[in-house]
């Protein structure tokens, strides 16, 4: 934090963390910041459950015959890894933790529009989580996180019903969060906070919420139908009773493809906040980044059947969905170009969040570009359901969404806790994660092109070398995740006091104390400045040259 002015910072006397005490004050809180911390604890719990499964998967795949467990158990491991990570970590992570904490503060509101519903959605998440944990601990789940019928609804012997109910229940948590966010952005903005003054993180949350409210209900009803089919031997998706298993896939991916954007859009929002702060200049192409978030959310609903090119889907439908899939790539590309251009003539510092942001761009580039291979009809014939797909979506979800989430946690950690984390360790962790991640997942692209199918408990011996590389990378990756866990926890007590605006940054959230008051602001702020406009913010204490610097910029 070389950039911090030398003034001595002090913790505010009263803030949301010490406003009230006791377990009840947390479990019955309606403060969006406290709810965000409840979510932080619970998604971290599921992250470590999912991570433990991932570790076992990678150890098992060290040898072609499988090192650790029976095929049956292996199938449960990757299924439970997927369910825990996707439904209970990735989807809620950024929206429910960072979004919950920041969205009201960023728009100058005292809280979300419906604070009680916000608390309710955390409880719904918990109930859904309990169902899923019950399934994991009583027989496990071996259907794949996609729950494809009729395997899940007829043939699987594992605890499918509680898992399906758990995911169904959890869906309502997402829906209520999305509803809350959209209403909040519409009605709760502070005076002067116009739509085009909104931080890009808020735009991203808004776009994500569109998917939450319009996509999630569909998977809820679909899983309910699959669960009913299993419990009462009905035939919606069972061909032996006249149903159609492909219909399940249509309905499933109608939500679950947009769900990928639920994971990546908020991370993109985080990156759009971090980059201008550490480049100390306005973001390049604000309206294009904001618009591309909405475009991704909307076009993202038109591409789902690209998961089904080889199910016997009609050629006409395959052509349509492939074309539309290429269209959704464009707004993502626009974002990357705009982020890179923001660095041009900036004043760039190497602080940890910036390392995560740049790492995100690199990994998201690979993840996004490999999506072009899979959207390509001719190539998908070969690549579908191979390790190429695994590598691709881990680059998006882990390289993209998780890097964004961890980067965002670091960026706003001083705001959330009022304390600074140890910068050196944090940089080490960021670099470790980046390297470990690439070593884990890059070999899987080659494995995929060689034809190694996904979800295999054992594999032909010729694939071993690349699998060993991947497992080696995974152990580095695991270490990379443990580090922040340790030093972030440590810093809550022993970290240096951060002060309200340590970086400094321009957003409203940095105008209030760290940690903020329960009602966020002493007085409702009035926004008179444009977003990321360092030059017209004398309050930040920076060396603003004003007009001359503009002239300097054009030479």
């Amino acid at each position, binding site marked *: 934090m070389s950039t911090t002015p030398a003034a001595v910072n002090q913790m505010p006397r009263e803030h949301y963390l010490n406003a009230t005490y006791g377990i009840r004050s947390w479990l019955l809180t309606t403060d969006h910041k406290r709810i965000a911390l409840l979510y932080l604890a619970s998604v971290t719990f599921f992250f470590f459950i999912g991570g433990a499964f991932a570790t076992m998967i990678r150890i098992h795949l060290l040898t072609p015959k499988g090192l650790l467990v029976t095929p049956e158990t292996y199938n449960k491991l990757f299924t439970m890894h997927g369910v825990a990570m996707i439904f209970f970590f990735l989807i809620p992570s950024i929206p429910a933790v960072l979004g919950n904490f920041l969205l009201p503060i960023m728009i100058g509101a005292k809280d979300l529009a419906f*604070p009680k519903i916000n608390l309710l959605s955390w409880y719904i998440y918990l109930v859904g989580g309990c169902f899923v944990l019950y399934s994991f601990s009583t027989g496990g789940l071996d259907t794949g996180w996609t729950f494809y019928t009729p395997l899940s609804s007829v043939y699987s012997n594992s605890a499918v019903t509680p898992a399906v109910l758990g995911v169904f229940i959890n869906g309502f948590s997402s829906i209520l969060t999305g509803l809350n966010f959209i209403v909040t952005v519409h009605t709760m903005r502070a005076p002067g906070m116009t739509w085009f003054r909104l931080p890009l993180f808020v735009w991203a949350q808004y776009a994500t919420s569109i998917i939450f409210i319009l996509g999630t209900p569909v998977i809820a*009803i679909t899983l309910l139908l699959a669960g009913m089919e299993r419990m009462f031997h009905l035939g919606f998706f069972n061909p032996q*009773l006249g149903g159609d298993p492909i219909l399940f896939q249509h309905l499933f991916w109608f939500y679950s493809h947009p769900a990928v954007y639920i994971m990546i859009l908020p991370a993109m929002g985080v990156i759009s906040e971090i980059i201008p702060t550490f480049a100390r200049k306005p973001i390049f192409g604000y309206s294009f980044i904001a618009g591309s978030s909405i475009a991704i959310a909307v076009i993202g609903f038109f591409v789902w059947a690209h998961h089904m090119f080889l199910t016997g889907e009609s050629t006409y439908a395959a052509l349509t969905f492939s074309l539309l899939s290429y269209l959704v790539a464009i707004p993502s590309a626009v974002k990357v170009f705009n982020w890179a251009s923001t660095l041009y003539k900036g004043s760039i510092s190497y602080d940890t969040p910036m390392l995560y942001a740049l790492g995100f761009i690199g990994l998201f580039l690979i993840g996004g570009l490999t999506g072009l291979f899979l959207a390509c009809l001719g190539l998908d014939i070969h690549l579908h359901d191979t390790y190429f797909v695994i590598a691709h979506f881990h680059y998006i979800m882990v390289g993209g969404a998780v890097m964004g989430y961890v980067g965002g946690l670091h960026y706003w950690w001083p705001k959330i806790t009022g304390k600074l984390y140890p910068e050196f360790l944090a940089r080490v962790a960021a670099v470790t994660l980046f390297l470990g991640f690439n070593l884990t997942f890059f070999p899987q692209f080659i494995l995929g092109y060689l034809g190694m199918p996904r979800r295999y408990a054992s594999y032909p011996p010729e694939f071993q070398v690349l699998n060993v590389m991947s497992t080696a990378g995974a152990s580095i990756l695991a270490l990379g995740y443990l580090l922040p866990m340790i030093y972030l926890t440590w810093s809550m007590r022993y970290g240096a006091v951060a002060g309200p605006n340590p970086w400094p940054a321009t957003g409203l959230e940095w105008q209030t104390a760290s940690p903020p008051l329960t009602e966020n602001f002493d007085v409702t702020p009035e926004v008179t400045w444009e977003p990321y406009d360092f030059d017209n913010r004398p309050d930040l204490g920076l060396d603003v040259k004003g007009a001359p610097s503009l002239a300097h910029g054009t030479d």
Partner: protein
Amino acid sequence: MHRTGELYEQYRTMEQQRETASLGMWIFLSTEVLFFGGLFMTYTLNRSTYPDIFSEASKTIKLSWGAINTVVLIGSSLTMAMAVWASQAGRKKALTWFLIATLVLGTVFLGIKSIEYHDKYVEHHIPGWNFQFEPGADAATNAHTQLFFSLYFGMTGLHALHMIIGAGLLIWLVKESVKGRFTPEYNTPVENIGLYWHFVDIVWIFLFPLLYLIDRH
């Protein structure tokens, strides 16, 4: 639940509070559209696969009950709309009576629905439970008609569940309205529950022709 017309701390004005509640309700209803949508999608595909079976199975449910229920439910929508009007116009007595009328009509609907369900139970038309379309029907006919009845019970069941929740909310409204809680300035609960009630009515407006009126000629 809440005290009359109180301004919650997160809002700046009553106006903002009211708009927020209304927008929240509409967005909730839009998620409901997609929630029912999955069932409509399943229905569409299965009906297009088995058009004749669907028409045959549909003919075993009594058109008269469905038609009566349609009238009853649209009637309850009218009384609900009138209740909203009464609350806006400040007619507290009328409000209570319109709410009670809505509640009664809703209950009549559910009563008729349970008669229909009972008929289906007698005819062995409950999916997954001794299902037998007609005596001597072969396995395939049973499977395909069971698809129709699964959708029939799934769709009307989910709809009835919404009605039951709506009836619960109405009871609460009646209670509050008797206490005179609603005024022209503060009637958001009446309006929002009204929106919900009308939405449930709209679902039925589609369920009726799709389930009862297949090739009745």
